[in-house]
């Protein structure tokens, strides 16, 4: 006599661990996005098609959708050119000082979009402290040329070049050296080899990089907000922001529809990226060692100069402009040793709003980092070492709030948390808690990826030895697995902190008086016309971020490859 179904006496501890992480993912990742999708795709009144029709009646909306696609596509092309060229230079040639060059190229990953935008505006602006020493000064009264479609596309392209770079560099490493050597012995020169052999093999990486860059571009808020709004070039993210800011939650329905459109566009991009990752016809190596095969010879100096100029222009010059602007007493004043002042910094540190914002961003960052680590380590353990299928699924779901545009997540959170919470009875809308909730959803993936990389490196027999010694899941995770995966978990925490600290897109819609984040303060100061103040806050934030990144790089020796995205 037996039961009709097996009664597996599994470890109860494992069930509990799985339940806790599943609960987290359900509450933070699934609930808001699910609510957004169901309420918009199946609205209480009417249906989705009618809603879409109503939305598209507005000329502004149609224009915004076109602009979004346009900015996405063209900036992606720019990112592709820039990122691929750099990856080919770094990966295939004997150009010198690669580590430094790569760091400069990857700066946009560390310095958030809004700070880059402010920096570039100062660089191209009427009182450009960087161009003035060269004698070039745009005539006063002339509109900043970056306040335009071209400006938005240019900055988006530069901002996301690093994604393409990383994807192509990873792809290069998987090309077996002997394919190139065979071509050389057949008499082909470097350019030909690059064009005929390497580029075709890189197509999946190019597609992956392009789709990542596209999705990031259409979801970006900081750059279109700072450059596009004054230039009357609206994209979906800024349109949503404007509507919500002007009319408040009453337009949640319309804005929900716009978010869905944005989400669908992003979804299409992600689908392309996923499909590109699957087609692998050529036998590739696992990315062991790839020695740069080409020497530049006589042309090396020329190439190096070109690369340095481009990268200095992209990474360093804007930051110089930023620091310069933060040191001048007022916009328009030329920077010199006599005019230099720290007043802006004093103002910022006294100004209640920005002091609060530093505190808010730091606390939010710390809280998000701790909570995300506490969840991602068990989840990674369950998925990688316990090989739980449910945990694997949760891992995939956790990517959604990060991959989708931040605006979509914000709208979803507003929809879900506008009304008072069940049981607790109060609403978290207009408090700092809703920002934390959004961060816990958005940055879970940031913590998960390093945690998974760390778990993958742990020897399974160590877990098995602990099992036969009688230890249950929690004890094994705490005493045996965690000590070995700790550096990766820490790295994940640092990445989460950095992301939350610098964040603008999500908090732009969720902030309220007293609950500003640093990103919001920078934007608001600039919007009010206080460019110097904005520059000061931005400079401080950038310094803090670079400092943290530097500290993280120091512990990077203990980390598996690829955990810190900017590590070589």
């Amino acid at each position, binding site marked *: 006599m037996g039961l009709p179904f097996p009664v*597996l006496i599994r470890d109860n501890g494992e069930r509990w661990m799985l339940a806790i992480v599943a609960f987290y993912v359900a509450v933070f990742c699934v609930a808001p996005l699910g609510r957004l999708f169901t309420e918009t795709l199946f609205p209480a009144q009417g249906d989705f098609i009618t809603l879409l029709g109503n939305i598209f009646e507005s000329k502004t909306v149609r224009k915004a959708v076109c602009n979004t696609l346009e900015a996405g596509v063209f900036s992606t092309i720019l990112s592709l050119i820039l990122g691929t060229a750099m990856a080919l230079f770094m990966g295939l040639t004997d150009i010198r000082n690669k580590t430094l060059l790569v760091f400069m190229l990857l700066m946009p990953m560390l310095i958030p979009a809004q700070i880059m935008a402010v920096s570039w505006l100062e660089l191209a602006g009427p009182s450009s402290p960087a161009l003035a020493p060269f004698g070039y000064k745009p005539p006063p009264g002339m509109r900043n040329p970056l306040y335009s479609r071209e400006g938005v596309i240019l900055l988006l392209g530069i901002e996301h070049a690093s994604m393409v770079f990383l994807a192509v560099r990873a792809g290069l490493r998987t090309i077996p050296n002997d394919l190139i050597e065979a071509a050389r012995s057949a008499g082909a020169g470097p350019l030909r080899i690059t064009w005929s052999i390497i580029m075709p093999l890189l197509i999946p990486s190019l597609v992956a990089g392009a789709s990542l860059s596209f999705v990031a571009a259409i979801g970006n808020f900081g750059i279109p907000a700072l450059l596009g709004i004054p230039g009357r070039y609206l994209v979906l993210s800024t349109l949503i922001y404007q509507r919500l800011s002007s009319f408040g939650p009453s337009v949640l329905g319309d804005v929900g529809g716009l978010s869905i459109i944005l989400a669908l566009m992003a979804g299409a991009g992600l689908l392309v990226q996923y499909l590109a990752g699957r087609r692998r016809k050529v036998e590739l190596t696992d990315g062991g060692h790839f020695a740069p095969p080409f020497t530049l010879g006589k042309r090396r100096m020329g190439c190096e100069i070109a690369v340095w100029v481009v990268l200095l222009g992209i990474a360093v010059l804007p930051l110089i402009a930023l620091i310069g602007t933060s040191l001048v007493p007022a916009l328009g004043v030329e920077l010199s040793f006599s005019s230099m002042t720290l007043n802006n910094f004093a103002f910022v540190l006294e100004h209640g709003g920005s002091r609060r914002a530093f505190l808010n961003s730091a606390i939010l960052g710390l809280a998000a980092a701790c909570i995300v680590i506490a969840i991602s380590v068990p989840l990674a353990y369950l998925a990688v070492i316990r090989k739980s299928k449910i945990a694997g699924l949760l891992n995939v779901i956790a990517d959604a709030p990060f991959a989708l545009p931040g605006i979509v997540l914000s709208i979803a959170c507003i929809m879900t948390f506008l009304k008072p919470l069940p049981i607790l009875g109060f609403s978290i809308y207009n408090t700092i808690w809703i920002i934390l909730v959004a961060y816990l959803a958005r940055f879970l993936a940031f913590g998960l990826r390093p945690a998974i990389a760390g778990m993958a490196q742990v020897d399974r027999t*160590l877990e*098995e*030895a*602990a099992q*036969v010694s009688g230890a249950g899941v929690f004890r094994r995770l705490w005493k045996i697995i965690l000590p*070995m995966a700790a550096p990766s978990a820490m790295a994940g925490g640092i990445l989460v902190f950095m992301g939350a600290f610098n964040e603008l897109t999500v908090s732009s819609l969720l902030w309220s008086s007293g609950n500003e984040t640093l990103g919001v303060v920078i934007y608001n100061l600039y919007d009010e016309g206080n460019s110097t103040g904005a520059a000061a806050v931005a400079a401080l934030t950038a310094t803090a971020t670079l400092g943290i990144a530097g500290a993280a790089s120091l512990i990077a020796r203990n980390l598996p490859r690829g955990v810190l995205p900017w590590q070589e």
Partner: protein
Amino acid sequence: MARVTLESVTKSFGPVKAVNDINMDVEDGEFIALLGASGCGKTTLLRLLAGFEPVTQGVIAFDGEPVSSKARHLPPEKRRVGMVFQAYALWPHMSVFENVAFSLRVRGITNKQRAERVSEALDTVGMTDLAERKPSDLSGGQRQRVALARCLAMEPRLVLLDEPLANLDVNLRESMQNEFRRFHRKTKSTMVYVTHDQAEAMALADRIAVMDKGRIVQIGAPREIYFNPAERCVAEFIGAFNQVRAKSDVSGLVLAEDNTIPLHALTNGNKNKHGDVELFFRPEDAHICDNGSLTGKVTSSVFLGDKVRVHVLLSDGQMVKVDAPGKHLYEEGASVGIELESESAMVLS
């Protein structure tokens, strides 16, 4: 210590049956070796006993209590089964002492008692002086002894060993084999030892279970297996058997004209087969003489120190190996005769 019973145990991975309908009884305190080539299912069987994999069919029971069945699977941490891994699996961030103490901590044993039991275990394997070292500072042999101590400390009902000597050099293996034998005698543990090394299995085990393609082909004492292999695959695995084709009739086995093996060379029980047969005999059971039942020419001889292995091409074209004392020399091309010891050859299918 436990008595282990396996009843019709099968483990499938998709369409492949890694372990196929195994029936086995391991007595309390017995040392049994699972012997076979790579892929025969011995490691899978070990992992089934440990509880790392659930059974697809059948029942595994310890002292009559089912631990693995289709209806019920007791997880490894609840089985009190000790395991010694091929790559030792010592936790690198813990000292030797902490590694051995871990299972006792889990069970909530107090500090003082824990320290006592750990010292006892380390003493048994001779690692007391190295208690504070980290695994990375130990040699292979030392690590394996710590792994053994770790097992000892938890007083398991069953000890499983997964090719524990595979990573050690040859000289170390013999001393570690002695270590295992000592361990078995002292603790009277039930031990299941997986290996692909037949000499090791014969040196250590009370009984050997020879496995092939997921099945147990023969199970018995080492002498039994060595002198009476039940099937051809067992013979092919144990020792260096010669295999020749012959025709059998009442007078003996005929390979070709002038090449007959007299009936008294066959072991009992195999004299009644007639027709085409496969004959197995060991190189050490044959000797070279001037006039033997078999004739052939020497093709090569390999000097192995204590013996010379002579390769002889028989007159009917088959090749056999014959061992001779190391001091003898045989020239290539020399004609020789071969005689088999009484009751040393067998007919196997």
